[in-house]
């Protein structure tokens, strides 16, 4: 598996994401927001957490229109894999690769804590390492993680089994307790919680590691 991790000005989980990919056996390339091409042979692009462009205008809005994001969109449209975590999820909704938007947390506070996540589907190359219905402990750290979309889209996400993770105790007001969703082809995952921050025993939990292992198992470089 060859993973590319995008670095925007203000990204702060880019190296954590790279470490998690490497621990699962991936070759990792870091790509800069001004780059106009992804490295040759990239299987998956990681869009990391942080505060790209200082969260100016809206979280992820400026990043979504950066040169590298046009390449990420092209990669996804060709059937490539994309993982967006936290700010990366916000970027993916702003690009339109995933539906909906992330609003300010309903309680207005920035929330940084470990939460329970239910694995809503194991039918994806991101979540195949978990049993559907399993509850895992993954940290969140966000101010704008309140997932919002129209009722028809919520119904479609459920009907197509595209909700990847839900909160067991909704911390931010997200509709239908949604913590992460998949694209229609199940190759783009956006999630607010940080699996890369629960990927090493030193983190205090390793429930996120199975996501990266599952990807590495599926995306074996030919």
């Amino acid at each position: 598996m060859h993973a590319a991790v995008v670095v925007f000005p203000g990204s702060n989980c880019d190296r954590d994401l790279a470490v998690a990919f490497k621990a699962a056996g991936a070759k990792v390339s870091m790509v800069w927001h001004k780059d106009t091409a992804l490295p040759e042979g990239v299987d998956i692009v990681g869009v990391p957490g942080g505060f790209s462009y200082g969260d100016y205008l809206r979280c992820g809005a400026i990043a979504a229109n950066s040169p590298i994001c046009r390449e990420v969109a092209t990669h996804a449209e060709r059937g490539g894999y994309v993982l967006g975590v936290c700010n990366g999820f916000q970027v993916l909704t702003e690009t339109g690769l995933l539906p909906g938007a992330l609003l300010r947390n309903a309680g207005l506070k920035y929330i940084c804590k470990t939460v329970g996540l239910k694995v809503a589907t194991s039918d994806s190359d991101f979540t195949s390492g978990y049993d559907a219905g399993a509850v895992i402990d993954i940290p969140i750290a966000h101010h704008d993680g309140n997932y919002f979309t129209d009722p028809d889209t919520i119904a479609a996400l459920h009907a197509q089994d595209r909700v990847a993770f839900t909160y067991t105790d909704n911390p931010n007001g997200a509709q239908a307790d949604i913590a992460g969703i998949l694209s229609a082809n199940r190759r783009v995952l956006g999630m607010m919680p940080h699996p890369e921050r629960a990927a090493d025993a030193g983190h205090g939990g390793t429930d996120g590691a199975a996501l990266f292992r599952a990807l590495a198992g599926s995306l074996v470089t030919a």
Partner: protein
Amino acid sequence: MKARVHVMLKNGVLDPQGEAVRHALGAMGFDGVKGVRQGKVIELDLADDATQADVEAMCDRLLANTVIESYSVEMV
């Protein structure tokens, strides 16, 4: 030519910041504030031949997220 863009959360989208302002006003003794919605104003300094349609394209592509926000454009 200048344009002024008003961006607001759509009706029905929870505005927790507006709610917090409403509570604060009530706590300060300003009675009768039934609701507060908070948005943003963006002022653009444009070339003389810029049109309203140009500004609307900017809104659709960047200045507003039409999943959650509505906008209005004022050419001034």
